[in-house]
C-alpha cells in the first residue's frame, strides 16, 4: 500500500529527532547512527504492511533503542537476543510511552546533536560534513560531491570528526539557559556555513551544491520549530530563504554567474520570498535586534525591489551601518560602501573604503569595488590598476571575466 519513496521521506523527516534521542541514551554517535539505520530497515519491512505509525520518530527511537541494547548485551555476552518479532511488532500502541520518555528532552536533544557537530575543536569543514552526515543523513558520496573531494577523503574527514567529538565529551545533562543560548548561537552559525558552502560557487554545478542550501533551510526550519519565538532563528531562516529564492536566476544558460543587478527577477522564487519576508516581519516585532535580522532585512529589501533600479539603497546603507556596529568587520564596511556609492556617489564610498586597504588587500571584492568607484570618478588609470589587482586575486575565470568587462568599459 505505502509507497517506499514515501517511507523514505518519513524516515528522513524523523531522523534528527530519532538520532538525537538515541545519542542521549547511548552517548555515542556511531551507536546512535547504527541503531537508527537498523530501525529504518525494520520500518521498511513493517510499514508497507501496516502503514506508517502516526508518530514515526517515537517508533524509530523505540526500535533503535531496543536494537542498540541488544547489540550492547551481545557484546557483553549477557543473554541471547530476544525474538525479532518482539521488536518489529511495535505498534502505535507503544508510541505514547516512547513519547512520554522523550518529548520532554526533545528540544535539548536536537540542540545537543547539532551542537556536537559544531564543536569548537572541529575545523569548520569537518563541522559541516559531520552535520550533513549525521543530522541530515546525506550519504558520504553526496557530501563528497558537494565539497568536490573524493569519497575516501570525505569518509576520512567524517571519521576524524567523530573521533574528536567523542574525545571532547560534550556534557549530556540538560544545559542551563546561558549554555543553551550559546549552543544555539553556535548551531545557527553552522547552519549558515552549510548554506554558504552550497551558495558560494560560481559555475552552475548546481545539483550537489544546491542540495546543501536545501539542507541548511531544512535545519533552520527544524530549529525554528524548536525555538518558535527566537527572532534570530526566524531571521536566519528568512535570510536563507531570501537568498535561495534567487537560485534560478544566478546562472545563465551557459552556466555563467549573473550578478544581482542583472538577474531576471521573474525567475526569483516568490514563495520563498514571501515566506522569508513573513519571517523577518515576525522577527522584527520582538524588538530584540541581532545580526541575522539585519542581514535578512537587507535581503528582504533586495527581494522586494521589482528592478535593480528600484532598490532602496539608502535603507540598505543604514542597515549595513547597524550591522557594522553589531559585528564590526571590514567586509561589512565594504558592503556599506557599495550602498553609499549608490546614494551619495563614488567619492563618499571611496573615502569609506580607503582605510580598509591594508586589511582587505588580498580580497578580490575590495579591489573590484574600489576599481568601480574610481572608474565612476573618471580616474581611469587608478581604476585599471585596481581591476588588474582584482583579476590577479580572482578565484575563478568568471570572476575575472566580470572585471575584464569593467576594464573594457573604461574610457580610453
Amino acid at each position, binding site marked *: 500500500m505505502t*509507497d517506499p519513496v*514515501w517511507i523514505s*521521506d*518519513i524516515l*528522513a*523527516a*524523523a531522523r534528527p529527532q530519532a538520532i538525537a534521542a538515541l545519542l542521549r541514551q547511548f552517548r555515542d554517535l556511531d551507536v546512535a547512527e547504527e541503531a537508527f539505520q537498523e530501525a529504518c530497515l525494520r520500518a521498511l519491512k513493517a510499514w508497507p504492511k501496516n502503514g506508517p505509525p*502516526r*508518530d514515526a520518530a517515537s517508533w524509530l527511537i523505540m526500535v533503535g533503542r531496543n536494537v542498540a541494547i541488544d547489540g550492547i548485551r551481545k557484546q557483553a555476552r549477557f543473554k541471547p537476543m530476544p525474538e525479532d518479532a518482539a521488536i518489529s511488532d511495535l505498534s502505535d500502541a507503544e508510541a505514547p510511552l516512547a513519547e512520554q520518555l522523550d518529548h520532554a528532552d526533545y528540544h535539548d536533544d536536537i540542540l545537543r546533536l547539532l551542537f556536537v557537530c559544531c564543536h569548537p575543536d572541529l575545523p569548520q569543514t569537518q563541522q559541516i560534513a559531520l552535520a550533513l552526515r549525521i543530522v541530515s543523513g546525506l550519504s558520504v558520496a553526496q557530501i563528497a560531491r558537494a565539497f568536490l573531494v573524493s569519497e575516501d577523503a570525505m569518509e576520512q574527514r567524517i571519521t576524524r570528526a567523530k573521533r574528536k567529538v567523542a574525545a571532547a565529551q560534550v556534557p549530556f545533562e540538560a544545559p542551563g539557559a546561558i549554555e543553551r543560548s550559546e549552543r544555539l548561537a553556535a548551531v545557527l552559525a553552522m547552519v549558515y556555513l552549510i548554506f554558504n558552502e552550497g551558495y558560494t560557487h560560481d559555475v552552475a554545478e548546481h545539483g550537489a551544491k544546491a542540495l546543501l542550501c*536545501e539542507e541548511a533551510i*531544512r535545519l533552520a*526550519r*527544524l530549529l*525554528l*520549530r524548536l525555538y*518558535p*519565538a527566537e527572532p534570530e532563528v*526566524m531571521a536566519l*531562516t528568512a535570510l536563507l530563504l531570501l537568498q535561495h529564492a534567487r537560485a534560478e536566476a544566478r546562472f545563465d544558460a551557459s552556466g555563467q554567474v549573473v550578478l544581482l543587478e542583472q538577474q531576471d527577477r521573474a525567475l526569483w522564487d516568490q*514563495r520563498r520570498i*514571501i*515566506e522569508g519576508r*513573513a*519571517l523577518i516581519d*515576525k522577527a522584527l516585532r520582538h524588538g530584540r535586534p541581532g545580526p541575522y535580522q539585519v542581514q535578512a532585512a537587507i535581503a528582504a529589501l533586495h527581494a522586494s525591489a521589482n528592478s535593480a533600479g528600484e532598490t532602496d539603497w539608502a535603507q540598505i546603507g543604514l542597515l549595513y551601518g547597524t550591522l557594522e556596529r553589531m559585528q564590526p568587520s571590514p567586509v561589512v564596511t565594504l558592503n556599506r560602501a557599495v550602498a553609499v556609492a549608490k546614494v551619495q556617489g563614488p567619492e563618499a564610498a571611496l573615502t569609506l573604503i580607503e582605510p580598509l586597504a591594508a586589511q582587505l588587500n588580498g580580497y578580490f571584492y575590495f579591489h573590484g569595488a574600489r576599481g568601480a568607484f574610481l572608474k565612476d570618478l573618471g580616474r581611469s588609470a587608478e581604476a585599471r590598476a585596481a581591476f588588474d589587482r582584482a583579476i590577479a586575486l580572482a578565484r575563478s575565470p568568471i570572476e575575472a571575466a566580470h572585471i575584464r568587462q569593467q576594464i573594457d568599459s573604461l574610457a580610453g
Partner: protein
Amino acid sequence: MKYAILCYHDEKVTCAWSKEQDDAVMAKLSVVTSKLEKQGKLGPVARLLPTTAATTLRKDRDPPLIVDGPFAETKEQLLGFYVVDCANLDEVLGIAKDLAAANPGGAYEIRPIGMLSPGAASS
C-alpha cells in the same frame, strides 16, 4: 452546499520535498482541480506557508496574548484548503479521494461551510 477540504500533513515531510517533487505533486493536483473548475465546483484554494511562519493571538484574555507559532502543536499541520461546491458529502469524499491519489500522506478533514463571503482582496 459548500464544503471546505482542510489539508493536514506532516510539514517536516512536505517542507523537505525537492522542488521537483513539489512541482510533480502540484501538477497532479492541478489535473483534479482544473476538472472541478470546469464543472464550476471549485471555490478558493489556499496553500499555507509552514506553521513556522505562523503567529497566534490568544484572545481568551485581555489584552490578547501574541505568541509565535501555530495555535496547536500537532503531528500533522493544517497546510491548506480547498472550497468546493457539491450536492452532498459523497461527492466531496469522491473529490477528496481524487486529491488524495494525487497527493498521498496525511489527511483531509471535510467541513461543511456555514457562511462564505467572497471578500474584496484580490489574489
